[in-house]
């Protein structure tokens, strides 16, 4: 393809400018016609158009027509943020057989029409477009850098999402290193019993995946393992996996539970035990093409005293309750836990979720979980129904803010709970239920202002309080730091865009699967994992990956060979040629530009982001 592209570098720049109305998003505040008129006489500009939607097919065709007619050899589109459509327009240009890098984007929506109004907004648009034109005029055609890609992925996390991704990638013929911190596979799901809305045993789901993992020679499982080293780039990451015997108490305890069991078996509330715990530390470095994050979530731990938690042994989390129910004697009139009859249970929703600044207490880092954890409503009702179905003598009081049984076949849990006489109380966060010790018939008392009965204060004695705790982003700070990953305000890993690229992180070749991104249930985690696997398969299927060519390039005519850039480069991407000129290895160069600033003769520059272009843009900003 590349040889058919016209090389315009020798030609005089002829810039086509295209200004988008964005269906009023821009044109309601910026007089786009005036902008088109104002920039059309800037030297180098040969056409200046506006269109309702530049990103639409007719909009793109407008550019392509001008290219095909030979009118233009540089393109400037003024529209929304470049993160949305820069690649769209580069693609359009490319399809018209012009080099896609002879393109500059002016952001006149997010950074103009949405923040300014009236004439000043129009004036600013003119300046921004003028600056883009001045940069475009100096652009040179670039070719993407093609690097070999290893047909290998590293999946971090052996929970449901990690297992799902590993199985799909392996079936696709891609080798997988499945790296799990604990000695077990199955992750958080292992702590469940039955899953909504199918009522399947979670053990069956995990074993479905682990048996596929065990069978597939493409998958290597590393339990008790962590990623300790990371370098490289998409297609060619080098990761170091360190295996080490687990030391923490909780894991020791779990290992004790599986002691003597055959390897390759599932243990309720522990996980699937592949059966290999390293005696001594082991370390291995792998070349891997893509990394899939499936590090999962952490359950919110209520604060000491939050709804009486930690102060009363009768206050437990939903997870603890599910565990206790599994151990409880079946077929009794009343549920018995720890030998005590449980006549009445209060279930409280939104513990550690939907926290509101000013009402809830922030943690020591001034952080709170403002989001909904998505799964707890249905899980709570599922547990409530299980109690009502099996222990008719045990009453359930349910304290909620909104019941969010949103998922397929989940609404049924809500309607059945009402039929089964689960009593609902609706609370506002500022009037959350209060748990107090009593000496009466019941050990605890729940007091709440019930929104459903005209804000009446309702008191009830209970034997047990179950807190539906939410999901928290897991602390994976060391990985985030090592791999420089984007994290959202909610502390979960951040995708590029929830709709355009939902399972990709901004770091090329690093993908997202499951609850490391946001709260999800098992079905949603599996979907995300499979979507990530599809992306990985597309990236690695060709055997090579094309990278943006925005790397440093030496101008040998200017280079004086003093080596300043070599000393400065943090990636060791620059070396000296025998004839004493600096030379850049484009696969290693990250395009940071540290070398550019230290070169006294301007003999090295970042392609597409050159210093000279910035100077031209400043000139335009000053002038217009």
């Amino acid at each position, binding site marked *: 393809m590349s040889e058919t592209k016209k090389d315009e570098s020798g030609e005089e720049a002829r810039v086509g400018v295209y200004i988008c109305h964005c269906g009023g998003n821009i044109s309601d505040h910026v007089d786009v016609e005036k902008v088109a008129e104002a920039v059309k006489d800037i030297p180098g500009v040969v056409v200046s158009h506006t269109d309702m939607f530049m990103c639409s097919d007719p909009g793109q065709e407008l550019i392509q027509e001008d290219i095909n007619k030979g009118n233009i050899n540089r393109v400037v589109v003024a529209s929304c943020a470049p993160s949305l459509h820069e690649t769209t327009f580069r693609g359009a240009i490319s399809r018209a057989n012009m080099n896609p890098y002879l393109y500059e984007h002016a952001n006149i929506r997010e950074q103009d029409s949405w923040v300014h109004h009236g004439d000043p907004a129009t004036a*600013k648009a003119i*300046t921004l477009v003028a600056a883009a034109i001045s940069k475009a005029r100096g652009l040179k055609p670039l070719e993407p850098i093609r690097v070999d890609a290893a047909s290998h992925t590293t999946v971090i996390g052996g929970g449901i999402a990690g297992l799902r991704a590993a199985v799909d990638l392996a079936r696709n013929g891609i080798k997988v290193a499945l790296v799990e911190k604990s000695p077990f596979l199955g992750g958080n799901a292992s702590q469940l019993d039955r899953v909504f809305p199918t009522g399947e045993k979670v053990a069956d789901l995990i074993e479905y995946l682990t048996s596929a993992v065990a069978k597939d020679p493409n998958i290597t499982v590393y339990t008790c393992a962590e990623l300790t080293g990371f370098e490289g780039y998409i297609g060619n990451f080098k990761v170091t996996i360190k295996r080490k015997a687990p030391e923490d108490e909780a894991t020791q305890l779990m290992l004790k539970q599986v002691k003597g069991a055959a390897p390759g078996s599932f243990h309720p509330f522990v996980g699937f035990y592949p059966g290999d715990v390293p005696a001594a530390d082991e370390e291995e470095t792998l070349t891997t093409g893509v990394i899939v994050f499936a590090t999962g979530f952490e359950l919110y731990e209520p604060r000491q005293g939050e709804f009486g938690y930690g102060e009363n042994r009768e206050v437990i989390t939903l997870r603890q309750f599910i565990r206790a129910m599994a151990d409880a004697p079946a077929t009794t009139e009343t549920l018995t836990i720890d030998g005590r009859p449980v006549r009445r249970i209060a279930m409280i929703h939104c513990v550690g979720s939907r926290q509101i600044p000013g009402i809830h207490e922030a943690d020591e880092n001034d952080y709170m979980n403002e989001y909904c954890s998505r799964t707890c409503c249905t899980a709570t009702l599922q547990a409530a129904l299980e109690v009502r179905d099996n222990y008719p003598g045990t009453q359930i009081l349910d304290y909620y803010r909104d019941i969010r049984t949103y998922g397929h076949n989940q609404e049924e849990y809500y309607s059945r709970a009402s039929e089964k006489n689960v009593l609902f109380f609706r609370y506002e966060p500022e009037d959350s239920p209060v748990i107090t010790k009593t000496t009466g018939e019941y050990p605890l008392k729940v007091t709440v202002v019930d929104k459903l009965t005209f804000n009446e204060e309702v008191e009830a004695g209970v034997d047990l309080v179950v807190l539906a705790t939410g999901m928290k982003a897991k602390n994976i700070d060391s990985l985030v730091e090592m791999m420089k990953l984007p994290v959202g305000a909610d502390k979960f890993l951040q995708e590029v865009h929830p709709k355009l690229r939902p399972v990709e992180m901004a770091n090329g070749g690093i993908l997202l699967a499951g609850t490391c991104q946001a709260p999800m249930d098992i079905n949603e985690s599996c979907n995300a994992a499979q979507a990530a696997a599809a992306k990985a398969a597309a990236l690695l299927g060709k055997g090579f990956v094309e990278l943006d060519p925005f790397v440093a390039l030496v101008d040998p005519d200017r280079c004086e060979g003093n080596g300043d850039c070599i000393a400065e480069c943090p990636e060791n991407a620059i070396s000296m040629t025998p004839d004493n000129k600096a030379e850049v290895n484009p696969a290693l160069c*990250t*395009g940071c530009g540290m070398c550019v*600033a230290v070169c006294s003769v301007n003999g090295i520059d970042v392609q597409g982001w050159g210093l000279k272009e910035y100077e031209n843009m400043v000139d335009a900003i000053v002038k217009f």
Partner: protein
Amino acid sequence: MANDTQEGKILILATESCAYPGANSVGQAHSSYPTNTYILRVRAPVLFPEHFYMDCFRKGISGIIVMSCGEECPYEGAYHAFAKRIDNVFQLMKKEDLDLRRLRLTAICTVCNRPFLKEVNDMNNLIKELGPPILKGEEAATDTP
């Protein structure tokens, strides 16, 4: 257009991975801020040599805000090198009798709407108070407002 230059222009160098999307996030929230702000998308501000900043002032830019990713900079060692460079620029500014507050270094993340607004408003108030930049020995060359 022309009357805009009267109030002075602010150049913002915003990093591609943090501050630039941060500025977009301000846009998505439709929070307004002074119009005389021009944001250039940069991969890392470490690219710019000392003279770039001085040239900007010389050309008539009244204030520069470098909005970086701070410690979260995706490029190894770049933030440190950049901080050192800015120190050098401050030295040069001192020599030219330029108010050091005209150059501001700050970390803005992708969701830092409020800090972004505060930075641009502060700088705007400052350059209003200071007027256009006049470099030593160049007084004559500058237009009187």
